[in-house]
């Protein structure tokens, strides 16, 4: 029916113009009213903004800059809403979950192959916390270097999709070699935007230890030379309760 390998179709355009009319005054008033009356506890818990890069598993030559707005549930688990920029009109393009190495090692191998490592991103200065002094985030970077992430991208804005099309794509993290090497122009653009330099970060992060072990089931493409696509298929809807899944 629909696949991550599909080319973009109708409803998509090559320019970045969003589909839809601007927000009307009436809607703005409704939104403002709801905002004043409602509480936003889960959203208010977001405590970090990280910017990094990601590669589509079905085509690693397609790479994007990503903005993660992160909530910590405990020392070993983070959840992030991922946007395509840090502007107020950014598009919500997916969700990433981040777990510590301890949690990752307990996952079944079939699950592990969907996750990517973060050590290289941190050490190479690709992962940043915009506007944060490096010294303050160093303890967190040390934590993150040992973590693994699982990132599903639901809106392929890089190919000009005006609306989210198709099934989610599994995303990979940048790595030092092969298909994992991040596009130089993307990094230059990021460096210019935040008035920073990747090379400076590499130097200042030299003290952050490399993990002694990165599980080879993560970054599956590196050891196994295989990538992943996701398809949506037609099936019969179950309408009778099966209690076995709750046992």
């Amino acid at each position: 029916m629909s696949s991550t390998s599909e080319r973009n179709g109708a409803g998509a355009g090559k320019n970045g113009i969003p589909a839809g009319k601007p927000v009307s005054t009436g809607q703005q008033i409704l939104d403002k009213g709801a905002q004043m009356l409602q509480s936003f506890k889960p959203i208010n818990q977001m405590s970090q903004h990280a910017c990094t890069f990601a590669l589509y598993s079905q085509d690693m030559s397609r790479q994007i800059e990503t903005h993660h707005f992160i909530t910590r549930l405990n020392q070993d688990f983070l959840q992030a809403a991922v946007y395509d920029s840090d502007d107020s009109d950014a598009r919500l393009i997916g969700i990433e979950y981040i777990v510590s190495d301890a949690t990752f090692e307990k996952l079944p191998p079939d699950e592990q192959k969907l996750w990517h490592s973060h050590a290289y991103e941190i050490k190479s200065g690709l992962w940043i916390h915009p506007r944060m002094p490096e010294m303050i985030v160093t303890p967190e970077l040390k934590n993150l270097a040992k973590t693994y992430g699982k990132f599903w991208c639901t809106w392929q804005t890089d190919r000009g999709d005006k609306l989210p099309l198709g099934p989610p794509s599994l995303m990979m993290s940048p790595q030092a070699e092969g298909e994992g090497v991040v596009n130089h122009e993307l990094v230059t653009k990021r460096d210019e935007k935040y008035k920073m330099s990747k090379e400076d970060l590499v130097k200042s992060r030299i003290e952050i230890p490399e993990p002694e072990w990165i599980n080879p089931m993560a970054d599956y493409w590196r050891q196994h030379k295989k990538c992943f696509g996701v398809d949506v298929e037609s099936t019969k809807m179950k309408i009778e309760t099966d209690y076995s899944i709750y046992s």
Partner: protein
Amino acid sequence: MDPVHATIHPEVPGEKTKIGTSLVDTAASAIQSFGPTKQIHQHLCAFHFYADDMTRQVEAHHYCGHRNDEMRQCLIYDSPDADARLIGLEYIVTEDLFLTLPDSEKPLWHSHEYEVKSGVLFLPGVPGPVERKDLEKVAKTYGKTIHFWQVDKGDDLPLGLPQVMMALTRDGQLYPSLAKDVETRYSVSFEKERQNRAYMEGLAHGIHPKANAAGVGLKTVLREIECKPSGQPEPSVHRVFV
């Protein structure tokens, strides 16, 4: 008998946040700007079920922002509390935008007309007249929902593939116990709201036959593929399964 699974909140494994870590979080939340998430201005509560299994129904808390007058984007949590799990996301578009989608895409979207008109979709804390003003619009939209974390079956971590989710389309689908539980916690009455919303209009062109999983069901499948050599464009493969 109804299962009571949708209110399971499995504890996420892990140690309590260390003081050093929470200090970084505190500093970052003070210094950094959160442009995209500041646009979130609406909390919507509704139910989703899995596109291949209507018997698995989940209470879903949507936190939405308008991208423009015709599109909202929402983060979905399993509760409205500070320790809520981020379980998915939803895009909501007007009927006009929905109709521009290719036919292969339409089954992934669900209609909202029944959810609104039956009273089960609501904005916690917002008085009825104000709420209805906005829901008049929602009734004419379609949504695309993906869940990544199957909390209803007790997963303490987000495991497996993303799941396409669907919404209620007629009476008799929602578990009465699930409805009762939400009505009690939020002091709302779905039946009363159904009457209050009787005047609302739905989709101008009626519910599209390709929407709501084309009236059948959908499942996601992972496929191991050859990695594309870097720098090579994607081959033009068009997969059709329906």
